[in-house]
């Protein structure tokens, strides 16, 4: 038996209703707003006001800021590792496919930096499959996915942002520090003016 069909509706109205079924979730809206905040021009008057305020409060902030920050926000490196691990655990479709960095570079040129190689990336098992646009601490980044029989490894590259990526060590290759977040092993370092991060399954 065929299911009952809906009543005929004017095409325009049917298209409008179908479109209105699609709404951004609050989380998606938040993600888009945060992207645009990154791009917002700085109001000069407001910046001067802020600079004056910051200068006046500098001594007090120096005395108490570090402890307050640690207590309130936690270790900045750990916050970054948590974001890296979260994205690693939720693989999404790749924007560009390619098995080498050379093949993927053109796809990520709009990010304003060149995908770089690093000796530490040699430790990754598996084959590079492709990349996806993403962000690390609201800084646009490239996500590169390597796949192997036992799972996948995710590598992130972004322009190093001293404020947003604070706490990320500048260690000479081939060394790097390892931390854990959400049960995932995460390595972060800065090199060649870029932030690098690796997350292992």
């Amino acid at each position, binding site marked *: 038996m065929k299911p009952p069909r*809906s009543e*005929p509706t004017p095409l325009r109205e049917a298209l409008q209703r179908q479109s209105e079924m699609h709404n951004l979730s609050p989380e998606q809206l938040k993600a888009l707003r945060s*992207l645009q905040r990154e791009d917002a021009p700085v109001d000069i008057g407001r910046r001067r006001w802020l600079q004056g305020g910051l200068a006046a409060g500098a001594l007090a902030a120096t005395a108490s800021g570090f402890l307050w920050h640690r207590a309130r926000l936690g270790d900045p490196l750990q916050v970054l590792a948590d974001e890296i691990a979260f994205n690693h655990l939720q693989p999404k479709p790749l924007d560009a496919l390619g098995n080498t960095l050379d093949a993927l570079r053109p796809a990520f040129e*709009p990010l304003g930096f060149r995908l770089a190689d690093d000796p530490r990336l040699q430790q990754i098992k598996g084959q590079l499959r492709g990349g996806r646009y993403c962000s690390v601490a609201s800084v646009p980044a490239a996500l590169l996915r390597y796949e192997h029989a036992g799972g996948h490894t995710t590598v992130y590259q972004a322009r190093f942002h001293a404020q947003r990526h604070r706490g990320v060590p500048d260690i000479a290759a081939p060394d790097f520090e390892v931390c854990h977040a959400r049960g995932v092993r995460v390595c972060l370092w800065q090199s060649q003016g870029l932030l690098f991060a690796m997350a292992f399954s």
Partner: protein
Amino acid sequence: MRQLSDTDYQRAYRYAVALTADPQHGFDLLHATLAQLLGKSLPADAGLPYLLRALRNRHVDDCRRRQIVLWQSLDDEDSGVAVIATDFGDLEARVIQEDLLRQCWQRLGPAEREVLHLWAVEGYTVDEIAAQTDTPRGTLLARLHRLKRRLADLDPQPSIRPQGVRA
């Protein structure tokens, strides 16, 4: 770039979903396009129309790069197709079952979904769609003509076929 409101984001998202025919891919497209616009020196008054245009360009690039969709077949090369002067008049009079529309939607091409979306949801005229999508008016009219035939082919109910179009 001008600060976008939540309504602007929703409109851009719905346009992206119309292009991709998939909510998740639509969001990915919108997110990637905004990230791409980051840091570029854009006109201060660049707002939603600018974003919609960037979304479209990005989607066309993606399709061509990944060869998931043969977008070029939608760029309307009208060899062998008799182009007739037309507008949205026939579509205005058309009725369709909503469940049938949902079934047909995936089978339409991105350019066809785009035209329908801009007409029905954004309320654009033929000239406005031509300007927004950088499509010559004649090409757009030919696309509309084919779209009407395609809708008739997709719809097995004789009662909702547009008049004058042979199945």
